[in-house]
């Protein structure tokens, strides 16, 4: 379980995260929702230690370590003059992932045929898939996926959705996905967490239909609601 304890971040006099406290439990997929600039990416960066935050980010009660996370933050960035396979092999060496099954990871995101294609020659959608493959390599304890379906075609979205519903799920793994795509998040998440102005304003345990979720989204971001919502 990853726990945020009173996590705050202030940059240039502006509060980007404001006393965030939340427990992300193992075995669940969390959907992080919020308008642009709400703090979703900043929250993920904070979990990775990429911000000068105050408060605590704990993994099972002790300080969370970077190597526990697999992540795809902001955009899928790779060394452009290396191939998809070389990029994943490089990552595996950094992470000391022995006998990393790079080809299986590529196959899972539909890139097995493009293993030897230079990243610079890949479309955004292909890079996004490669980013998901990299994040999942080595079976990390926590998976942070920031807009993982960004730039993907419908088939790619379906594949990522299938991964999040299927093989990526593990009783000991916690997955946090941020997206603006409400139906997409509703389809893969066990719990939705709403972020507004650097604060977690609400979480809902049960996800209803996409239209119900849109209604809930509107309700939350047009009111001052805070706290955990009951099942709809």
């Amino acid at each position, binding site marked *: 379980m990853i726990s945020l304890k009173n996590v705050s*971040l202030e*940059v240039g006099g502006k509060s*980007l995260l404001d006393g965030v406290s939340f427990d992300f439990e193992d075995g669940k997929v969390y959907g992080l929702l919020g308008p642009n600039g709400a703090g979703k990416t*900043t929250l993920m*960066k904070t979990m*990775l*230690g*990429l*911000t*000068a935050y105050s408060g605590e980010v704990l993994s099972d009660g002790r300080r969370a*370590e*970077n*190597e526990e*996370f697999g*992540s795809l*933050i*902001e*955009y899928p*960035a*790779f*060394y*452009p*003059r*290396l191939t998809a396979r*070389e990029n994943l092999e*490089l*990552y595996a*060496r*950094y*992470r*000391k992932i022995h006998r990393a099954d790079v080809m299986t990871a590529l196959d899972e995101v539909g890139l097995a045929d493009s293993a030897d294609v*230079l990243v610079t020659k890949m479309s955004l959608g292909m890079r996004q898939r490669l980013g998901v493959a*990299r994040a999942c390599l080595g079976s990390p304890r926590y998976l942070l996926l920031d807009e993982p379906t960004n730039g993907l075609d419908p088939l790619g979205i379906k594949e990522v959705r299938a991964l999040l519903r299927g093989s990526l799920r593990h009783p000991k793994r916690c997955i946090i996905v941020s997206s603006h795509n409400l139906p997409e998040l509703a389809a893969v998440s066990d719990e939705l967490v709403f972020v507004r102005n650097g604060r977690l304003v609400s979480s809902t345990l049960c996800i209803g239909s996409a239209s119900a979720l849109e209604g809930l989204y509107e309700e939350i971001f047009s009111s001052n609601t805070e706290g955990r919502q009951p099942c709809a």
Partner: protein
Amino acid sequence: MRLVFNEICKLKRDNSLIFILALTLLPIITGAAGAFIGERKSASDLIFFVNNQFAIFFPMAVVMLAGSKVCQEWRDGTYLTWVTHGIPRTKLLASKAIVCAGVSAFMALTALALLTFVCLILSAEGTESFPVIAAFVPGFAAESLSIIITSTAMGFLIGVLSRNQLIVSAAAVVYGFASCLFIGADWSFIIPGSFAYRIATSSLDPLTYYSSPLTATFIGVFATATSVTVFATVAAAIFLKGRKIER
């Protein structure tokens, strides 16, 4: 070793290395061209000319290489991934430094090999160049080592400060010329690049060294060591501190 190997892998298909190598070899190419059209008849003349130019272009190339290797992570957008592998940042930076120093040393060796080759061709035309080259090698080695260490540290400093490839390239050009601006001055030992140059030339002709050799050597070594320490420490401090929100 794993980190160093990764940094070597990142150089794969990197065409900028060809440009940087060409920059290092430029003095020998222009020097050889001059020699063959009869401007410089002896190996000694050629080596003096080449070393003069090398003292400008080699620091330029090394700063460009080191700075670009650091900036690569921001340019490619891989910085966030690179620093979240759970590996201490000092080790990440050190692995880049080792690879940059290794590549720079290879470039210096290539330059020396090419220079030797050109001198041997000149020998065939009647001048005895082998003893001259043999005398020059220790000085050239000391000069190259000094330039590699100082310029790598400087390249890293500019790289972490600017995070921008263009700024690194512009600063490298300025650094190359600035390090040789006072090359002939009797106090130039306080400038690492100039001091390194004078060490190399003195191996050919001891009269080209400073008027107070002992003091100059002592202060020169101290100034070089201090420069490297300051550049490397500030670069590491900036890199370790990071930003309030990393991008």
